């Protein structure tokens, strides 16, 4: 990977990518059928048939009341 940085008065003002970064993960494929399936469920860690929850950034403060916390405690 090569990056060109423009510095003006000690401040970085521009970063330009000269070459694609070598990020292994970029070429890692997702599995077929990894498509969202629409559902409408009220969440309950005991009955929800899920392992983990994706949602807009949970903070540590929000975690204790989150479904993810309940799933972790249930040891699913």
């Amino acid at each position, binding site marked *: *990977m090569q*990056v060109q*940085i423009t*510095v003006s*008065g*000690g*401040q*970085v003002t521009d*970063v*330009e*990518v000269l070459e*694609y*970064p070598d*990020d*292994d*993960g*970029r*070429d*890692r*494929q*997702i*599995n077929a*059928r*990894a*498509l*969202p*399936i*629409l*559902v*409408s*469920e*009220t*969440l309950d860690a005991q009955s*929800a*048939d*899920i*392992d*983990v*929850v*994706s*949602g*807009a*950034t*949970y*903070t*540590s*403060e*929000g*975690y204790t009341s*989150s*479904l*993810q*916390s309940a*799933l*972790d405690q249930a040891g*699913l």
Partner: protein
Amino acid sequence: MGMPVSLALRGRHADDTAARTAWAGALAVLREADRVFSTYRADSDVSRLSRGESGLEDCAPEVAEVLALGAMAERDSSGAFSVWRPGPDGDVVLDPSGVVKGWAVERAAALLRSLDGTDFCLSAGGDMVCSTADPDAEPWRVGIEDPADPRRLVAVVPVSSGAVATSGRAHRGEHVVDARTGRPPAAVASVTVIAGSLTWADIDATAAFALGPEAARWLETRPGRCGLVVWADGTTTTVHPVSR
């Protein structure tokens, strides 16, 4: 970064010394990323770089890697995503957190990939890397939270191998802005992206969210990704993967 991190393991090393060593290593990777990149720590490499007290050559080499990813995302999103944002006193400040989180968790997951015969799901603050040792094994089932009501799900994604990231307004307030206007987008409530790496799932979720009404159309152009856009009115658009 102040976010909860969870790890689920299944299989050969589900509960042994190798698993505990890998978990400790994964946490060390995340702590190191926080030390270098945190915008909340005045002494982090990124805080000093942002204040102009040090140059990129004084920073950990990973800072250049993250800034390059940020530059690529800015280019690909026509400027809606940027690691530069207006500061409180009119200056432009460096805030690479939109890149760092997914990138750091993807790096941490590398330690778990070394556990043979073991499935893992490493989740940090609502984004996750999933892997099953056997591609035909039962996939991890990832619930996508309803942005209007965090007690409900809008969708479930079965993931054997891949990463899932969601960007939205819930939990932390309106923290994602369209870098072109400095305002949060109004049309979209959340964007979930499934990709091969969490680095790009996270970047693309944030960029698509910042693009507002263009979120689904833009995501459709991204090779190797699929996802779900939940609009402000509660309707959804499922984005199918395009071939490269």
